């Protein structure tokens, strides 16, 4: 894992003290809320429905045990004993006091963490593949490239006041586990025919009010020119992105309006200019960063295979662990989606337990997934059973990865001041309706995603089944969407028809799954059947 150098630590520590002074001045009445609001947002502190909410950055979703334990301690000491892992691989605390916020940031700084650039019209936390460094199918570990971009984008003065917020994802395999093409910039690290490592740039994707899949803007940028190319992409956006209309200010609108070809032409022109300035990082600096992500201590010579005599364990191992690049290991996904539970929430005790388990069983590494689960990326197969027993005792062994119970849900109207409808109660009702494990497994891969408003933090556009909460004359109403995907075969879900009440949408989803079960061909996932049949049979079954 990357470790702060003296400059990183000094920068974060200075920012904490600066914010401590800003909070003191606000509390003393020396600055108004209008003056203070942009300052607190710069430090990830929002004012939500019930209290202040703090969003803490987890760069590319990677944590060590010490950092994870601190997240649990903060939940206990300053919040109400739990935290919420988000679809941007971050964590949010819902009950923060303004007067505590500077000390929380100081505590975070002791474990090389912060909340900088988790809000505002700047480049947000860089997200990545949650199996990075463990995936058998990756070209290289994408995290050194994500870290390079993190360092470039942190406090970048030119991009501190963009037309709108800006999200970047970096992956390094053909299997997209980061919804890469639904980001402002999606970068896929690839190897060209000459065996050289470089970056393929997708620009102009996103969800929200106007969902778009990012087109390829450049097939291959040499690895060390990646930062310069990103700079060119941002510079064109910063120059021409619409600041007159918040709803048309994201880069996807610019790319769509001028067209990918014209956007590409302008970026290439800017890129050619930037290359003359010699801004590329030296090879030695990249190698310094990459060294932090080198082999975490994987043992060689281990055999694949483990004792599967406990049937409950075998079911979990089949569903929630995935192949590892190193023989004898598996990557483990800890589901934060128990039946009837709140997606992404974990108690302080659960967070600390996962920290302990990472130290004992996963070479001191954890990942937060954009699907609101936690990954232990490097677990010896011989340790899987002992790990499962400890997870099971803590309510963390739900075997539902990528099944209908593995629901993404935004905080919705229960917590969020932007929401129009509640998301979490729906997730709870749906996961309870489909709680029977055999029923979930019979349905197979089925990704269900719920957003409480058009901002789409719950990724409903990318759900095989998506749900969007709307406000219909002061009453919650839910639209049903089908056919979305955030994987390599990215597609946008389409609205089926008129909306439903809370109970009505749960029934409608059951109807949809019944159509799938009745009409699927051998080996088809829900998404495959939908793509083959189209919307019609599902719509007919729901509305008659």
């Amino acid at each position, binding site marked *: 894992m990357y470790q702060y150098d003296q400059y990183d630590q000094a920068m974060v520590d200075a920012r904490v003290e600066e914010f401590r002074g800003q909070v003191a001045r*606000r*509390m003393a*009445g020396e600055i108004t*809320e209008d003056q203070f609001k942009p300052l607190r947002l710069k430090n990830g502190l929002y*004012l939500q*429905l*019930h*209290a*202040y909410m703090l969003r803490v950055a987890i760069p590319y979703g990677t944590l060590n045990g010490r950092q994870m334990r601190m997240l649990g301690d903060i939940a206990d000491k300053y919040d*109400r004993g739990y935290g919420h892992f988000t679809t941007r691989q971050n964590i949010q605390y*819902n*009950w*923060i*006091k*303004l*007067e505590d916020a500077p000390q929380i940031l100081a505590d975070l700084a002791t474990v090389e963490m912060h909340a900088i650039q988790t809000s505002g019209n700047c480049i947000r936390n860089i997200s990545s593949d949650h199996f990075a460094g463990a995936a058998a199918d990756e070209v290289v570990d994408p995290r050194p490239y994500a870290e390079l971009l993190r360092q470039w984008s942190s406090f970048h003065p030119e991009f501190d006041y963009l037309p709108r917020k800006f999200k970047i994802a970096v992956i390094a395999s053909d299997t997209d586990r980061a919804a890469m093409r639904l980001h402002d910039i999606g970068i896929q690290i690839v190897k060209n025919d000459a065996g050289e490592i470089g970056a393929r740039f997708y620009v102009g994707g996103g969800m929200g009010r106007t969902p778009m899949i990012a087109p390829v803007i450049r097939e291959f940028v040499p690895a060390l020119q990646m930062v310069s190319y990103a700079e060119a992409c941002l510079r064109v956006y910063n120059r021409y992105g619409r600041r007159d209309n918040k709803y048309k200010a994201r880069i996807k609108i610019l790319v769509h309006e001028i067209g990918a070809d014209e956007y590409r032409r302008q970026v290439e022109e800017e890129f050619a200019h930037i290359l003359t300035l010699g801004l590329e990082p030296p090879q030695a600096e990249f190698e310094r960063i990459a060294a932090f992500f080198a082999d975490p201590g994987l043992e060689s010579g281990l055999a694949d295979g483990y004792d599967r005599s406990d049937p409950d364990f075998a079911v979990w191992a089949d569903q929630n662990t995935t192949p590892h690049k190193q023989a004898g290991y598996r990557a483990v996904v800890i589901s934060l989606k128990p039946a009837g539970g*709140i997606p992404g929430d974990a108690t302080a005790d659960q967070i600390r337990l996962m920290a302990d388990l990472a130290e004992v069983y996963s070479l001191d590494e954890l990942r937060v997934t954009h699907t609101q689960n936690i990954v232990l990326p490097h677990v010896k197969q011989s340790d899987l059973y002992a790990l499962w027993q400890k997870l099971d005792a803590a309510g963390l062994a739900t075997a539902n990865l990528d099944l209908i119970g593995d629901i993404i849900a935004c905080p919705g*109207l*229960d*917590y969020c*001041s932007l*929401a129009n409808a*509640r998301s*979490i*109660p729906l997730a*709870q009702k749906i996961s309870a309706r489909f709680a029977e494990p055999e029923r979930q497994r019979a349905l197979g891969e089925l990704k269900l995603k719920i957003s409480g408003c058009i901002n789409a933090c719950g990724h409903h556009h990318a759900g095989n089944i998506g749900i969007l909460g709307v406000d219909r004359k*002061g*009453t*919650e109403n839910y639209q049903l969407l089908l056919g979305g995907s955030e994987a390599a075969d990215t597609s946008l879900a389409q609205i089926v028809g008129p909306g439903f009440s809370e109970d009505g949408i749960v029934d409608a989803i059951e109807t949809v799954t019944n159509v799938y079960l009745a009409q699927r061909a051998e080996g088809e996932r829900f998404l495959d059947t939908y793509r083959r049949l189209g919307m019609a049979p599902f719509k007919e079954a729901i509305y008659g």
Partner: protein
Amino acid sequence: MKILTGNDLGSGHVVWWDGQGWSRHVHDAVDVGDAADTILAAEEAARRVNASYAISATKGADGTVRPDHIKDRIRALGPTVRPDLALQPSDPHSGNWVI
């Protein structure tokens, strides 16, 4: 009726104007009539409340106050999915009041 709400500056708690100060309980809220802007300006300036605004509400025959919009009812009670954190955690039917 027209009532006032906001968040306590330091704690962030949801608060309601009770005629003298700010209460954490919506049932203490009073009708401010046409005085909303005047009260809010004074209270914001004195840093006794943050992000304040006026909303419509209905007073029941039993004297309870119910904001007209669901968002403010959720603010008044707490997250419907965490009744243990709500202001009336002992009332198993408090969620019904929100809906």
